[in-house]
């Protein structure tokens, strides 16, 4: 009988099994722990019934009949047999067919030892092959992309990779071709499977037909040691299993977290272990001797770093110390550093964002939505970065909501994005004008620059009632954030609206939760709202809000920062205004870097403290939703490297203080005690909910909609408004230190609307001069109609060009002139 939740009950092999209306027999059985052999069925993709391995018998009026359990819907009282002689015969028959042409090269196959086909052949299959004919032959592994190899002889044609590419990723670049016994999976010649999500196909391939270049022949499954963890490459926080072999990270596999990633990972996250294993790691502390950074002992390095801080404090006061970064570590790292900076050193010049993020009041002062809540909304307003580029798995979730649910997407962006083709309406603005555009859109009357036919459906959708979630974030780094805040002010007045504020960097949301921003304390509170529990444990609390990243760099450039700590940050590569970053590194007194890899910024450091990287330390991390989940240590830290929190604690000691944070557990307990938003996120809660617990808490920071700033300057007829945004593959360490990923960075080109391109008389592919008020650089131009007329788009932080040289953050927007040579 269907119970009051509408759940049904079926009987599988005599056992009652609860089932949800509309689901397939195999899914209900799977949940109840009854394994029905299968190859093509995957719980996160539509059923195709291709392999026919999942045959079972279902009782009917005319006796039992054989059906595929992956496409047979449950019915209340249904009786299913998975072990009857008829079922066994049918299943063994299918397995024999699958093995007939399979090469059985298990000993040299990456999948050997964890292969469902191999396992089932052992447990069910007949011993000797009755297939005496010549097997099918294909050229052995062919690369379908630079990351994925395909062995068509091993392929059992389950449609998982092709279905994933089309249905989940929206990149139908691998397809079935030919038919019958020549059926095979292929890419188009010269058009590789260059999907950001290609690695998932390797993971879901039920045999060893798809293998990943970075893992190939690295380890055998029985040598692997595994822990569940959370990816911190970006702020989606996908759950994954980190696998090592002989104390080296060798593979990450997606884990199905219902609220987050559904088992998927992007390739940057999946293959991120290559960067951890890079020879460019900083494996010991370093101190400067003249022009050189020399390896030294921890004691000497910490003494040097503490000495620099002490000297700054003594000579120029706590205002002369600043900490930039903190988004790369764990929550525990961030808490320890926040406490070190704010309670021990006494500075509030701390910022984990690099002028590319959101005002803390936008993050914490507005009603927030989780990913699930966002995807269940009737309307999602996309008012932020290209999610496919910045938060790839969030893109998958929202794409799924738009394609497979009733959700409508309304996009308001400076250029088309990966989601544009899935939107109900997509509007363009010119940076600087978004505040005015959205304010006008949400008021009555005409919207400048848009006709009524465009505006009417958008207005109707926004006012149609039902849930609305705004995904808000920075769409471009070449302009300042005030207009965004004006727009958010207008959007916040929509009935029942919620926000999913997105910042990209790994644990930036956790760092901000822990107080790594000017004016903030752990638990999303302002300096004036410390609370007794925090005051008990913090020797002091800053009284005045400090400088943000831009302010810190300006102060450093002006010589006002005696000691600048780069906590895993690389402003030369990552800060939008490169000239400012350069002047700051030169102008700062002493530069102390805490980092995992050598980079352009820490080359300026006087002291480098070697930090443990991902997989080398445990703790927790926080994703865009504020979801806290564990990260695991799987290997020992490289060389002498240490976790950031340990470095903070050691520095405190040398500064004559005691953070009182002896262990990760102690930090976690202290966070629970002092941060009201995290009061429920105890170790026990995290053990019970490995997919994470969403922090929620008093909206102690109120969002106050700013006054509309003065209209940005109009772009003059000869100029284009610049849009600069991140693409997934850039020159950051996760990419540049990963040998298989680094070549994927697309490089820098100037993207122009076809009309502008032709108006400027550019010959296709020609190099042009791009000049801003700052400087000029030479770039190849590309016609790209995803860029609206009057704007120009350039990818940020590519290995071949420093586009940040063009950006001057002291002006509201960046306009460029383009000249042919």
């Amino acid at each position, binding site marked *: 009988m269907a119970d009051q939740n509408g759940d049904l009950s079926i009987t599988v092999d005599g056992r009652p099994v609860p089932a949800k209306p509309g689901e397939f027999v195999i899914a209900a059985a799977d949940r109840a722990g009854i394994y029905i052999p299968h190859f093509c069925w995957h719980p996160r993709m539509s059923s195709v019934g291709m392999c026919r391995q999942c045959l079972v018998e279902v009782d009917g009026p005319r006796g039992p009949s054989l059906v595929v359990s992956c496409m047979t819907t449950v019915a209340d009282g249904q009786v299913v047999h998975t072990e009857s002689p008829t079922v066994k015969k049918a299943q063994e028959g299918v397995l024999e067919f699958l093995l007939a042409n399979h090469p059985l090269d298990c000993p040299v196959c990456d999948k050997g030892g964890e292969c469902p086909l191999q396992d089932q052949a052992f447990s069910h299959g007949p011993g000797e092959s009755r297939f005496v004919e010549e097997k099918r032959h294909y050229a052995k592994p062919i690369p379908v992309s630079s990351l994925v190899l395909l062995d068509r002889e091993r392929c059992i044609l389950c449609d998982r990779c092709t279905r994933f590419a089309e249905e989940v990723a929206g990149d139908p670049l691998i397809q079935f071709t030919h038919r019958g016994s020549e059926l095979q999976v292929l890419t*188009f010649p*010269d058009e590789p499977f260059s999907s950001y999500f290609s690695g998932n196909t390797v993971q879901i391939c039920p045999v060893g037909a798809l293998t990943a270049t970075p893992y190939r022949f690295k380890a055998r499954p029985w040598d692997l040691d595994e822990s569940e963890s959370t990816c911190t490459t970006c702020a989606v926080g996908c759950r994954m299993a980190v696998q090592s072999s002989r104390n080296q990270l060798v593979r990450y596999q997606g884990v199905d977290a219902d609220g987050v990633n559904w088992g998927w990972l992007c390739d940057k996250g999946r293959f991120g272990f290559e960067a951890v294993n890079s020879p460019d790691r900083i494996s010991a502390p370093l101190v400067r001797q003249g022009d050189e950074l020399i390896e030294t002992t921890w004691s000497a390095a910490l003494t040097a770093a503490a000495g620099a801080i002490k000297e700054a404090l003594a000579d120029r006061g706590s205002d002369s110390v600043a900490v930039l970064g903190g988004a790369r570590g764990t929550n525990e790292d961030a808490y320890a550093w926040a406490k070190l900076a704010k309670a021990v050193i006494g500075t509030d010049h701390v910022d984990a964002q690099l002028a590319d993020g959101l005002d803390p009041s936008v993050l914490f002062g507005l009603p927030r939505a989780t990913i699930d809540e966002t995807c269940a909304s009737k309307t999602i307003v996309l008012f932020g970065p290209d999610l496919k580029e910045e938060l790839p798995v969030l893109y998958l979730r929202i794409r799924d909501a738009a394609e497979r649910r009733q959700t409508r997407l309304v996009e308001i962006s400076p250029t088309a994005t990966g989601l544009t083709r899935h939107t109900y309406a997509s509007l363009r603005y010119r940076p600087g004008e978004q505040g005015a555009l959205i304010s006008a859109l949400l008021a009555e009357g005409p919207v400048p620059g848009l006709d009524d036919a465009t505006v009417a459906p958008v207005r109707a959708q926004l006012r149609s009632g039902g849930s609305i979630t705004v995904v808000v974030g920075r769409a471009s780094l070449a302009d300042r954030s005030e207009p965004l805040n004006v727009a958010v002010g207008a959007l916040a007045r929509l009935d029942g609206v919620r926000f999913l504020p997105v910042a990209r960097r790994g644990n930036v949301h956790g760092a901000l939760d822990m107080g790594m921003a000017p004016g903030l304390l752990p638990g999303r509170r302002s300096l004036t709202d410390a609370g007794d529990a925090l005051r008990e444990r913090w020797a002091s609390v800053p009284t005045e809000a400090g400088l943000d990243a831009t302010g810190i760099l300006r102060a450093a450039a002006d010589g006002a920062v005696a000691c600048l700590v780069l906590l895993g940050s690389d402003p030369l590569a990552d800060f939008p205004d490169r000239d400012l970053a350069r002047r700051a590194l030169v102008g700062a007194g002493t530069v102390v870097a805490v980092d995992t890899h050598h980079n352009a910024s820490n080359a300026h450091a006087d002291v480098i403290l070697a930090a443990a990287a991902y997989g080398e330390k445990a703790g927790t991390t926080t994703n865009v939703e504020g979801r806290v989940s564990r990260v695991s240590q799987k290997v020992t830290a490289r060389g002498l490297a240490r976790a950031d929190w340990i470095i903070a604690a050691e520095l405190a000691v040398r500064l004559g203080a005691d953070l009182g944070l002896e262990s990760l557990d102690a930090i976690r307990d202290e966070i629970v005690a002092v941060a009201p938003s995290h009061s429920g996120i105890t170790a026990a809660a995290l053990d019970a909910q490995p997919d994470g617990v969403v922090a929620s808490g008093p909206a102690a920071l109120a969002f106050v909609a700013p006054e509309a700033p003065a209209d940005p300057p109009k772009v003059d007829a000869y100029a284009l408004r610049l849009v600069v945004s991140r693409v997934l593959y850039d020159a950051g360490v996760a990419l540049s230190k990963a040998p298989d990923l680094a070549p994927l960075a697309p490089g820098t080109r100037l993207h122009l609307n076809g009309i502008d391109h032709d108006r400027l008389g550019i010959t296709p592919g020609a190099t042009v001069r791009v000049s801003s008020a700052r400087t000029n650089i030479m770039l190849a131009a590309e016609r790209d109609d995803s860029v609206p007329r009057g704007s120009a788009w350039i990818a940020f932080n590519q290995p071949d060009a420093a586009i940040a040289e063009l950006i001057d953050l002291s002006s509201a927007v960046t306009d460029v002139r383009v000249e042919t040579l």
Partner: protein
Amino acid sequence: MARLTEAHVALAREVIGRFPRPKSALITLLHIAQEQDGYITDDAMAHLAELLDITPAEVLGTCSFYEMFKLEPVGRYCVNVCTNISCQLSGGWELLEHAEKSLGIKAGSTTDDGLFTLEDVECIAACTEAPCLQVNYRYRYKVTAADFDRLVADLRAGRLNNEVPPHGVLARVRQHVRPERWAGTGAEAQSKVDAR
């Protein structure tokens, strides 16, 4: 000559307009490409992908499913001899053997002069006229060895140029509807559903 010519692009757009959803035109468009080049080139597939806003891999997926689309060049004349059951019972294999000998090639290959490709095909729906064959999809019924040799000689001599166009050209009459006569009800109704 591998992307579609301008005239063919115009034709392709007309064909696309006859379906409620553009991708439905793909097979017809592939026939147009094959008519242009005699087989399906990679460039043509890439061009069709552009015209339909799909990936070239999707075009390849569809294209390679269908026997008639040739991914490699074939002869000017594709001679398809049926050997399926009705023809087998009435001398289909003997006809194929004769064809192999007469053309000097095995079924599945092309003569050196690029004129003939010979294939052993499945039933072509002329079972009562067995043994039968098609040359560029034009029928020949109850074919004897002598008939076959005469056919080859006529084709070589160009005596059948009017009746048998080069491989790739299928119907020489196309559907063409003046816009005033076209109802457009399918596309209109479907676009309402698709707008979600």
